[in-house]
């Protein structure tokens, strides 16, 4: 190592340290305005959660009590730890044609790691991640949920 490199090493070392200190010093001065902590139990009514927050898997239903799930079980296959169990049935159309549909969409919240693989695997966008997180219950059986609402059916036009 020659003398020039030695001093440029020192110079760039100090420069990079100063850059880091500038960042944290700026945060220190602006901490009042840019707080990223949510005061959770206090601001429960005005809580702002990030859009990408993954709290639990839900199946959105529209006003006619219709969902987009065709019962293809892609989510069940994609799930790494057996969180989703789909029980299918066969609907018989007026013309006498048999069509596959879901009977029950069972979701085990207690097993779920919120990895989002099921949502990505779904070809029809029937399930999404909801930003809820207050999941504590006194009995774990309450965490096994049925996602399709009673009497719901698949939306027309979704194959």
């Amino acid at each position, binding site marked *: 190592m020659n003398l020039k490199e030695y001093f440029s*090493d*020192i110079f760039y070392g100090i420069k990079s*340290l100063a850059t*880091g*200190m500038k*960042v*944290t*010093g700026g*945060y*220190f001065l602006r*901490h009042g305005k*840019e*707080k*990223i*902590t949510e*005061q959770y139990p206090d601001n429960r009514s005005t809580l702002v959660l990030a859009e990408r927050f993954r709290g639990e898997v839900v199946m959105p239903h529209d006003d006619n009590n219709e969902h987009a799930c065709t019962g293809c079980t892609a989510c069940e296959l994609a799930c790494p730890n057996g969180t989703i169990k789909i029980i299918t049935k066969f609907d018989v159309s007026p013309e006498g044609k048999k069509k596959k549909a879901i009977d029950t969409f069972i979701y085990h919240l207690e097993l779920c790691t919120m990895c989002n693989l099921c949502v990505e695997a779904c070809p029809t966008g029937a399930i999404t991640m909801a930003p809820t997180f207050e999941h504590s219950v006194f009995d774990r059986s309450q965490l096994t949920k049925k996602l399709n609402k009673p009497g719901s059916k698949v939306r027309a036009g979704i194959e």
Partner: protein
Amino acid sequence: MLSLEKIANAVHTWLYQHFDETWALLFEFVIVGVMVITLFAVLGLVLVLMERKVSSWMQLRLGPNRIGPGGMFQTVADTLKLIVKEGMTPKNVDRLLFNMAPFLAIIVSMVIMAPIMFDKGFQIWDINIGVLFVTAVSSLSIISILMGGWASNNKYSLLGAMRSGAQIVSYELSAGLSILTIVVLTGSLRISDIIEAQQTGWWIFKGHIPAIISFVIFIIASTAETNRAPFDLAEAESELTAGFHTEYSGMKFALFFLAEYVNIFVVCAIGATLFLGGWMPFHIGNWTQFNNIMDWIPSSVWFFGKAFLLIFVIMWFRWTFPRLRIDQLLNLEWRYLLPVSMFNLLLVTIIAIAGWHF
């Protein structure tokens, strides 16, 4: 105006009037001891709270905010919890050394308090080798760390203690050399003389660039000596759980923790004394009015303000820089800090001999 010197002198004369010399001296010992212990407790509470607040603000968090206004009594509650906790001694440890180590740590940081001048004329012991005393005693703190690490009978503790040993032995050198630059400029090891020499301006301004370089080296080396991040290899949480105090719990752990924070204060107080003029107010040349306003601020406020400013800088380091590896740590000392500080000392000596400083 609040002057600790006047209060101290009044107490001194009152004691010598009412008791004979031996008893008066003994009473003074007791008073000083109680005051040092009180200072310890207050410093521990204040510095831990300050650390938590500074860290949280630098990370855009809120920090402790539940107990007391703005979380002010958080550390008081923590201390109460630590006091009621069981001070466990594990089965296969060296009992004597294990129980002695935290007390040794605290005694060492107590002894360094002696020559520090907290206010104009307010000092426990104005020893004529004050700076040497501080550097000599502060290097004893490694013994308590090695003792605790060895006696714990735990690989993590031993590794942490050994790392700490290598670290303190090497960084002591550059800390000592940077202190020496000021000793060279002042021509005295006595703390009161060093402060007196800064009547016309602090050494960091009067000593030109070499003084600034040695100030920076002193801050780096003292951060390393107090085992704080980015040099906290001795207790690197991610590698060694808690390093040398892995096996400690309850109040014995608290003593190590307290000693760490008091050491930070002591180191920063020394830095403030040597480079920033101790209790000397900030003066600018011939601006009489400005200087009068500065004089009006009590000198103890000046001293503690400077010390806490340096403590803030060290905390700033901790919450900005990532931890060094052991080889990087030793590289930094032996290949950069030591040669630079030796060359710097030479430069300062030339300046002092030629009288180029103000």
